[in-house]
């Protein structure tokens, strides 16, 4: 029997990143919870679809508020993100905003470009692997910090800083600079 090394980041890694962000030393765009848990967490779908390995729902416009340099997601109006392990697209084509927002673990979110850097196809979130995977034939895989895990993509995904505050996600519209 071959080895079964887990490819998934451990819970300790995720929490360590969250603490690092809280202390201003973040190395990845995961947002940590500073405020209370939004009530939407108890409404699994509200009649709207949840993400699967193939399909990612779009956030409704009514949960989004755009500011000059950030977009705010009202989690109370975003049941797609209520459950940890789900993801949703955040799209505003007029503003050229095309992101995928992932609720990684309870209170921890990340936001990245939703297009594969290989050929521009859309990504979906594979919850069991904690990876973003292209839905196209070659299915490039990306870590949640945007780094390529498996090609043929070679360029990392743009990631956006996320802050969680009082039931709101604040996502910077400008991508984070990569080291």
């Amino acid at each position, binding site marked *: 029997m071959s080895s079964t090394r887990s490819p998934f980041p451990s819970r300790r890694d995720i929490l360590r990143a969250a603490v690092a962000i809280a202390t201003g030393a973040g190395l990845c765009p995961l947002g940590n919870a500073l405020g209370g848990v939004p009530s939407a967490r108890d409404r699994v779908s509200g009649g709207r679809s949840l993400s*699967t390995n193939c399909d990612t729902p779009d956030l409704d416009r009514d949960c989004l508020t755009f500011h000059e340099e950030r977009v705010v997601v009202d989690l109370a109006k975003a049941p797609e993100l209520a459950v940890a392990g789900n993801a949703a697209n955040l799209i505003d084509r007029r503003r050229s905003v095309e992101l995928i927002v992932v609720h990684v673990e309870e209170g921890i979110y990340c936001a990245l470009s939703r297009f594969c850097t290989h050929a521009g196809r859309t990504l979906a979130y594979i919850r069991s692997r904690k990876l973003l995977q292209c839905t196209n034939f070659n299915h490039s895989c990306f870590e949640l910090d945007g780094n390529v895990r*498996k090609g043929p993509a070679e360029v990392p995904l743009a990631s956006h800083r996320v802050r969680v505050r009082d039931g709101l996600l604040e996502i910077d519209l400008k991508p984070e600079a990569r080291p």
Partner: protein
Amino acid sequence: MTKAVALVLLIGLGAPLAARGQAAGDTWQNPQDGMVFVRVPAGALLLETASDDTGGHTITFAQGFWMGRTEVTVGQFRRFAAATGYSTEAERAGNRFTWQDPDFPQTDEHPVVYVSVEDARRYAAWAGVELPTEAEWLHAAGAGTTSRFHWGDEIDDRYVWHRGNAGDGSRPVATRRPNPWGLHDMVGNVSEWVTVCEGGQAPRGGSWTRCPRYRHLHGGVVEPFNNELARRLSPCPPVLPGYPWDDDRGFRCIRRER
């Protein structure tokens, strides 16, 4: 008596494969790697008509052949590698992931992946078998049916491992229902290298990474498994995927009667 018994044994062991059965679903086990081969009967493969009005013709198989009941497994490939000292092209290239560590949990019963066409050829030569042509593969996969898939026109999770029900890795072979001729995982699990033309191979059959239905960039819905199951022959040379190996690409073997 001893000589008579020996003579009978000699005849039995040396009997051509054809004497072992001609009916669809008859089986033969390869002593080299333990793979069970299933009899694919003679018959005709009706190819689809392409958009340029080519195709739409029939390929006739005057005689049947034997095809691996499943994709070659990790365990079988391991025996090959141990017996020959073979390293795959991905291993020699220093690829991050290989057939021994494909970045998802696997057992010896999973289909081997991260194998190139050359890796598959080397294995087949060791096992005394070959890679199928695209036409042979399509004939075997269709199993005499005319529907989109051998079970019907819609995805049926009882028959296929795809991204919707196996999204985090391949699955052990033969854990979905077989086609009418007894072949497992012709659709899904891992795609399989077939020979399209001299020097040209392509993967067919779809895999665990393929969505049963998904939206493209501009919202268009893509048909299940794209063209991997289309009953038409690939161009020569085929348009190859981006990698010579991948985590969803394996192979199965064929034994032809000479």
